[in-house]
């Protein structure tokens, strides 16, 4: 694990900023970071663990290179989000919340992304993909894979 980023205040106010920085840098929060932050901010390890398990945005296990988030909010749900999720799950061969063995994809669900008019919606690497149909899923996944292949 690298260094813990610098922070303005050395107290509990900094906790979420620090967790964000670490999550962004490593793609997850390495468990040993909890103990380093605890010392730095002078709060208990259990408090940090409480905060980071509260938010879906923080993960304690390494995530894949690409993050696929499916909105499961009410509007998306009635427009078929479960079917979209199933299709991603089948294509990537992982359960929601898990990461593919080659560490390329992580599939997650959230409860609403606030873009109900575009439902059902998936977010791939930060890009909103609205009004999805199950037939679009294969294209999306392949597109991401091809993008990698071109890049390398």
């Amino acid at each position, binding site marked *: 694990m690298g260094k813990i980023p610098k922070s303005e205040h050395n107290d509990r106010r900094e906790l979420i900023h620090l967790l964000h920085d670490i999550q962004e840098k490593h793609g997850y929060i390495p468990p040993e970071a909890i103990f380093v932050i605890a010392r730095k901010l002078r*709060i*208990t390890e259990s*408090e940090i*663990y409480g905060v980071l398990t509260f938010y879906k945005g923080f993960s304690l296990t390494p995530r894949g290179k690409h993050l696929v988030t499916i909105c499961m909010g009410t509007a998306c749900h009635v427009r078929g989000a479960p079917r979209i999720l199933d299709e991603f799950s089948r294509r990537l061969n992982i359960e929601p919340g898990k990461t593919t063995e080659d560490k390329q994809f992580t599939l997650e669900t959230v409860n609403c992304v606030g873009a109900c008019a575009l439902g059902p919606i998936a977010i791939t690497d930060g890009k909103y993909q609205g009004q999805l149909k199950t037939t679009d899923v294969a294209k999306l996944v392949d597109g991401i894979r091809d993008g990698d292949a071109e890049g390398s």
Partner: protein
Amino acid sequence: MKISLNGKQIDAGAGRTVLEAARAAGVYIPSLCDIPRLEPFGGCRLCLIEISGRRGYVPACCTSVEDGMTVLSETPALQKIRREILELILTEHPNACLICTEKESCDEHKSTIRKVGETTGCVLCPNNGRCELQDVVEAVGLDRVRFPAVYRNIDIKKTDPFFDRDYNLCILCGRCVRTCQEERGAGTISFIRRGSEAVVGTVLDVPLLEAGCQMCGACVDACPTGALTERALKYEQPAERTDSIICPVCGMGCRMDVSLLGGRIIGSRPAPDGPANGGQACVRGRFLLREIPGSDLRITMPMIRRKKDLEEVEWAEALDFVAGRLKSFKKDEIGLVYSTQLTTEDIFALKKFGRDVLKTKRVLPSSASGAPDMMMDLAGTNGSISSLICDLNAVAEADTLVVCGSDLPRAHPIAWVNVLKALKKDAGLVVAGTADSSMDRHADVTLRVKPGGESALYGLLAGKMITNGREKSGALGPGSEKVFAFYESQKEKALLDSSGIEKMSSVETAAALLLKKGKTVILWDTGTVPDDREKEAAVHLWNLALLTGARLLPLSSTGNSRGAAEIRRSFAAEPTASAFTQDVAEGRIKALYLAGPFPVLKTKKTEFTVLQASFWSEASAKADAVFPAAVFAETEGTFVNTEGRLQYSPRVLEPPDGVKEDWRIVSLLSQIMKRGDFTFKNASGILKEASEVVPAFAGASFTGLKKSNGRFLKSAGESPLNLILPFEKPTKIPTNKSYPLLLECRDSAEGYRELLFAVAHPGFALLRDPEAVWLNPKDAKSLKLGDGDPIKVSFFGGSFGAVARLSDGVPVGAARTIYAGGLLPELSFVPPASVFPVKITRGQ
């Protein structure tokens, strides 16, 4: 301040919440998350009330009273809301029994049904009958739960010692989380995850012990349901009665409510009205007291060694045998050791026995009274100690606190609870010590000294008081000019080096805090063997206190160390532990009378050894006679805690047949030997005599103490305090190339008399391993040692076996151990000092 509650005018008292005011007026408002000592939380929403002029419903626990407020707590609307909230709470808590009409008769007929692993209803719950949820359901009146029941099916956590955690019964009131954080400053547990997955847990869900829990049990006492339950009580019937006693283990003098059943202590809880502890305790008082009277190691019959083995005999025979042999020794040939966990009366009787019957000046307390004793020594010539020391209440009220040489949360948890009270009110905290501590997180400045560097630091701080502007007042005694000159001529840089502190700036920060206006309290503890170096530290702290107008709280290690220190002053001077040990080793002490733990020394056999003990120990193998002695709850008497509070503890248990109180045993011997005046009929008579001989006890009596909730010792005269001139040359720890590491021996009361808690309960051994010697991983690496490896620790004059433990908290070049009274066979030695050079090698 007056408010109207359900149409009745009640006197509310400013600063209270509505819930507190209602409780004080005897009006019941249901609540599951409120605890009087904690900050308002507003979690369970059961205490909702209506206030005229305010919209909606507000929680009574979070609403402060206002003059003329009109409050309704029992309207039909409120009752409906409460029932609905309770229904929601109960969907995730086994509830079938709660609303079952057969409940009462069920309890009667199925009294042992609780012996199941999983709790799915009240009759199966270890907390049945003690459950606050049951009380609230009863009060609110619920006859059905309309929502489907959810069993969360969380694994019951049974890997930690002393108590189980079954979060299937948890209602997430947060009392445990808040108690751990707010009241104990530990924060071992938090709410983790969210929504329907929320649960109370530790970091990364590790066991409590791994998360640094000290097992104080405060969370168990706070839990309103059966989620946290003491394992030992799980299958016990409800207690027959509860009595308050004083915990004899450490020097805090906690009042504990012991529950008694069939002549046994089945459990102990801190008494909410305990003057010293106020509803708090530590692992020793909370979970270990019950292990003491009924221990398997209890000695219940007198014994003598005729040929090879010890044989059980009648009291008369044993007394005659011992009296005959003791008579054959001349003056000062017998060494007497007494436990400082005995009552004041027992200690007084033993001291008198030593002087008048054994006719010896070689009398040694089993554990040094350390800090209080040293301060009393200084006070002897330089002023009255009562104008310098303070009580725990003053700690809670302080503006600045300095903790010197003690890891309070482990060694003196009740002192720590009071420090936390002050910190809540924004007090400053300076922590000075040799190792990391959970206090560091709360400290404004941490001064990490190397072992033996303490007195240099205290001297440096005292000097800073003068150089940084403290007025040089002549009111600090006739010799004060010399003391000022001493501190002004100190070489600060050299002192900083010998203290081992890295930066002068942290000392400056600490000095600035000490110079701030307001009440300052210095808490101080010594190591196992208070030596010249610690005497020097005591002088600097004394001066520091006088220069800042601070109060001192010297911490005593065992239950009656402070009482022993007072009694000692009315008798001939006691030898030091090392002088006593040498006398044994070199045969000047020919016989030992051990009424307290003393290590079995690897020297030639003493001619005659008498054990007046409650438990079998290593020493039994060398004893020629054994007298079974009563334990704390079996004898009435008094204890003096670290504050100097004299408290009465009653006899609540019958001792086993054949066991006698310590004072009675020595009285009987005195009568047979026809030496000394031991005509006491009871313990109260001994206190009466002590009160005439020992000035601090003047006027004390059992009757008075029972009525008055204890009292503070008086010291004669209120003479003004003087500054004391420190030693010209600072005491240095001898260094030796063959012994490259410095070992620090710390004693915290880890047992009662001869019984080590680590032996009495395997759970305690997991918490505090008495065999462990902690090393910095760097040193361990160069010694090629791993965690858990057996090691041999050699020092000039002896060696002992131990187990290596690695910790970043220990500085490089240092090692630490709990001395534990030398009770473990591997630790059978008397340390030459609190800090001394050692060599560590692999193997026993």
